């Protein structure tokens, strides 16, 4: 019979093995840019991602609703029609942490992604494109959030 004590000892051993093999979540999460997701504004977030100061550009497009009825599910899409896009990022200005998502796009992918984000309140949303030549461009759009349908 396997007692609890034996079981505990075994699991500790297995955990140790996993840690040495780098299989534990802490190891797996190392690539996640914590500093960028902790940033409170766009400039800090982009800097934490290793980008230059963003410049507004018509080559980046951000699509989303003018008014979102439910801030928990706001469909947004960002795209860039220039060549050499390395990264696309979506940011919501007035969320507790500005950065929502970062997409590393390879050459095999059209530089265009859509997803759904959460918004705490009406705010500007930014789409940022980081190009391979070091340029950082952005587009912005104000999205109003109607919470519970009682006006925003």
């Amino acid at each position, binding site marked *: 019979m396997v007692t609890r004590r034996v079981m505990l000892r075994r699991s500790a051993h297995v955990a140790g093995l996993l840690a040495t093999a780098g299989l534990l979540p802490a190891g797996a999460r190392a690539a996640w840019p914590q500093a960028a997701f902790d940033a409170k504004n766009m400039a800090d977030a982009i800097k934490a991602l290793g980008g230059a100061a963003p410049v507004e550009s018509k080559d980046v497009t951000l699509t989303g609703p003018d008014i979102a009825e439910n801030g928990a599910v706001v469909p947004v899409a960002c795209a860039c029609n220039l060549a050499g896009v390395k990264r696309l990022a979506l940011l919501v200005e007035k969320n507790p942490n500005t950065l929502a*998502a970062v997409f590393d796009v390879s050459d095999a992918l059209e530089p265009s992604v859509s997803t759904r984000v959460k918004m705490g309140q009406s705010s500007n949303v930014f789409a940022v494109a980081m190009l391979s030549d070091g340029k950082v461009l952005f587009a912005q759009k104000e999205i109003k959030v109607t919470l519970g349908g009682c006006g925003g």
Partner: protein
Amino acid sequence: MADPMRIRAQAQGDKAVVRVLMSHEMETGQRKDSAGKTIPAWFIQEVTAMHNGTTVLSAEWGPAVAKNPFLQFTIKGAKAGDKITVNWVDNRGEKRSDEAAVT
């Protein structure tokens, strides 16, 4: 183990549009439960998409991505029958990998 992802990949000319719907709580870590205690954050941190085994997209997400996340992207040069694999890892280290064929 989390529920499977729903992946639909449709060929459109020389491209394929991939739509992925993942099943995940995406808890922000900002909400409080009825007892006033903060509900710990639980969200997908990393998503990777592969086309016939080559990584074409990797994404890092914060808790601001909506519950049951939706993701759409377009792969150049993909044709019917190609294999699309999508993986995610959340901040608890849970993983999920699903695949679909381009139709």
